[in-house]
């Protein structure tokens, strides 16, 4: 019998799933919010999202080819996710050139300089937003009232709900339903909680994200807000907590892998967010809290190991 035999190490069967598939589902989970942002803030949202995605993809492809020398580097959805997420945390009035610079920073500096996919320390979208905020603070904190029409109309500047609370402004605080539906001033993709939660549900159903990080994050924010005498429900539904907790803190590359590590990571994110909001100079703290915990992630990973079979847990 003449047969050709294939030889390899065990196991010989494999779950039919790859990183492309995982990332594809993340993009799908983000799409409802893309539509929400276009409806809420007009066509300018679409242009910002497209600018970010295109710049990210081009930067990634070019750097992969000429810098990282990855011969087999296949196009994957990772830069698309970064682009969409970066656009989601920009104000609707961001100039397109600024969005492009942010995207370049996200991919080139934050991701590729550290070794590319899987090796970055910080969440690329958040780190890029932090750099933009430090470089153009005025443009990055100008918010507009939602226009709520597909056609779009002129923008009217307004303060975000958290800023109203922080600065003790005279404007009225939006109702819970406004907060939930997203008809409030804010970054492109952070306001509409409805679509964000639909996306999160998709990720849970596909078992792409684990409950530990988002739920401890949100839970700790609610708990501390209550302790500081703020309204927990308002805190959760304003600002970027839903976006941050489900889509950014859960970024696999920059979060710990063990279950205990994930709990610590989520609690840390929640605590720092609540502290910044209550005591810090900024009205919002989601971005910095996640970046800060990204720094700690390798340390958490080192010490918060799972309980090994047959070993007593070390004190």
């Amino acid at each position, binding site marked *: *019998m*003449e*047969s*050709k*035999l*294939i*030889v*390899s*190490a*065990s*196991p*010989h*069967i*494999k*779950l*039919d*799933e*790859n*990183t492309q*598939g*995982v990332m594809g589902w993340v993009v799908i989970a983000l799409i409802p919010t893309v539509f929400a942002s276009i409806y809420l803030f007009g066509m300018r949202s679409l242009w910002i999202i497209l600018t970010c995605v295109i710049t990210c993809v081009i930067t990634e492809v070019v750097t992969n080819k000429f810098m990282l020398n990855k011969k*087999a580097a*296949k196009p994957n959805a990772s830069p698309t996710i970064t682009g969409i997420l970066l656009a989601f945390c920009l104000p609707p009035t961001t100039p397109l050139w600024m969005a492009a610079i942010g995207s370049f920073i996200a991919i080139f500096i934050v991701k590729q300089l550290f070794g*590319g*996919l*899987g*090796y970055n320390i910080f969440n690329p979208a958040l780190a890029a937003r932090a750099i933009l905020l430090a470089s153009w603070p005025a443009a990055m904190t100008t918010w507009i009232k939602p226009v709520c029409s597909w056609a779009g109309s002129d923008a009217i500047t307004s303060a975000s709900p958290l800023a109203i609370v922080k600065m003790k402004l005279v404007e009225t605080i939006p109702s819970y339903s406004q907060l939930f539906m997203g008809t409030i001033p804010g970054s492109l993709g952070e306001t509409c909680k409805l679509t964000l939660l639909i996306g999160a549900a998709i990720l849970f159903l596909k078992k792409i994200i*684990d409950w530990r990080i988002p739920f401890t994050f949100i839970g700790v924010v609610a708990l501390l807000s209550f302790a500081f005498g703020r309204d927990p429900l308002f805190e959760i539904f304003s600002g970027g907590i839903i976006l941050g907790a489900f889509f950014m803190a859960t970024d*696999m*590359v920059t*979060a*710990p*892998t*063990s*279950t205990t590590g*994930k709990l610590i990571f989520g609690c840390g994110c929640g605590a720092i967010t609540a502290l910044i909001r209550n005591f810090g100079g900024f009205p919002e703290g989601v971005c910095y809290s996640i970046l800060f915990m990204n720094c700690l992630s390798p340390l958490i990973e080192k010490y918060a*190991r*799972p*309980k*090994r*079979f*047959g*070993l007593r847990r070390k004190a």
Partner: protein
Amino acid sequence: MFRSKTFHGGIHPPENKHLTRNKPIENMPLPQKVIIPLLQHTGAICEPLVKTGDMVLQGQKIGESKANVSSSIHATISGTVTSIELYPHPILPNNIMSIIIEKKTEDAITDRVNIEKTDWKKLNAQEMLNKIKEAGVVGLGGAAFPTHIKLAPPADKKIDALIINGAECEPFLTNDHALMLEKTNEIIEGLQIILKILGINKAFIGIESNKPDVITKMQSILELCTLYPVPCTVKVVPLKVKYPQGAEKQLIKAILNREIPSGKLPFDVGAIVQNVATVFAIYEAVILGKPLIEKVITVSGDAIKEPKNIRVRIGTPISKIIEFCGGLKDKTAKIIMGGPMMGMSQYTLDVPVIKGTSGIIALKPQKEHIEDPCIKCGRCVDICPMGLMPNHIADYAEKDMFELCKEYGVLDCMECGACAYSCASGRPIVHLVKYAKLKLAKK
């Protein structure tokens, strides 16, 4: 249906047991030629007791070792020894000295072994252990550790429970299932023999709940018969269907809720685990005086024409077995000795079935998985049944940082393959673990 016990972690690969589930065990006709490696067990290699040109009878002892840990080898067909030479081995990397026996038509030898039943209740433990040793019985779950040594634990270890492993968690394999269904009484009798040898009276039979027919049959037989020694308790424990439920440590954890400390053995927590096929071999050795010369195996996989459960003589080349099962559907295939999760892929079809073989799986070439960088999704960490961090072990092994692999517990890894199975990036984690272990052993 059953309340089933289990362990932490694990995966649910497609079972694919339907290919052979309801097929009775078929006897494969005796092969014309067998290749019997002198090393089929954990321990020292045997010295041949015959030389080229000798006539041997089926069941005749042809290899033995004076070493403490070893197991005898028997002729599995009657015929002439045509050569004793180095031959490819299905599990070991090097060629192993093997005795090749060919059946000659002119040999008028009756193929019968002694089938007089011995009343084992009259034998003492040592006499029974000698019979097991003479029959060359080894652990048939995979490691092939000599059974007569496993059943005589050091005096300072107090054993209180016997666990019969009928989990059969590897996909495709149904050989233990078929054996338990067809030889239920024999297995229960074998179990009592082990209880007598160990001088204990508590036993558990762990079976994954995807074999309800066996669970029901075992339970009904146990209810009817009076077991020896008196009093004794034998319980059938339905286990959750999860891989690797049949791994020794996970099985003891699920049934007795005892955790074997890192680097220790089952008898350190007072338990002894025996595979159902081993129990059946013990029954045959003690009661029928029959040496271990044949084995029930599953031949299955999507590349085999007629998947079957068959009883084959040890030493039968796998090319003959594949022929008996209708051959391969394609010219290109992966032939695995054992299950698809932990079995060894073969580079030649000349290798023989050995004592520890549980199945031969032929798989069609699969879609190639290109390796991506680890995206730290943490799935391997979640599912590792040993509570290790396979992602870091693989990383450090890749960078030749073996001391760190050791710190992360690489030596506790049993290479079950759950991590590599679930890895979305398609990283060869088990391969890297094997590499790290090899390098650490050489230090």
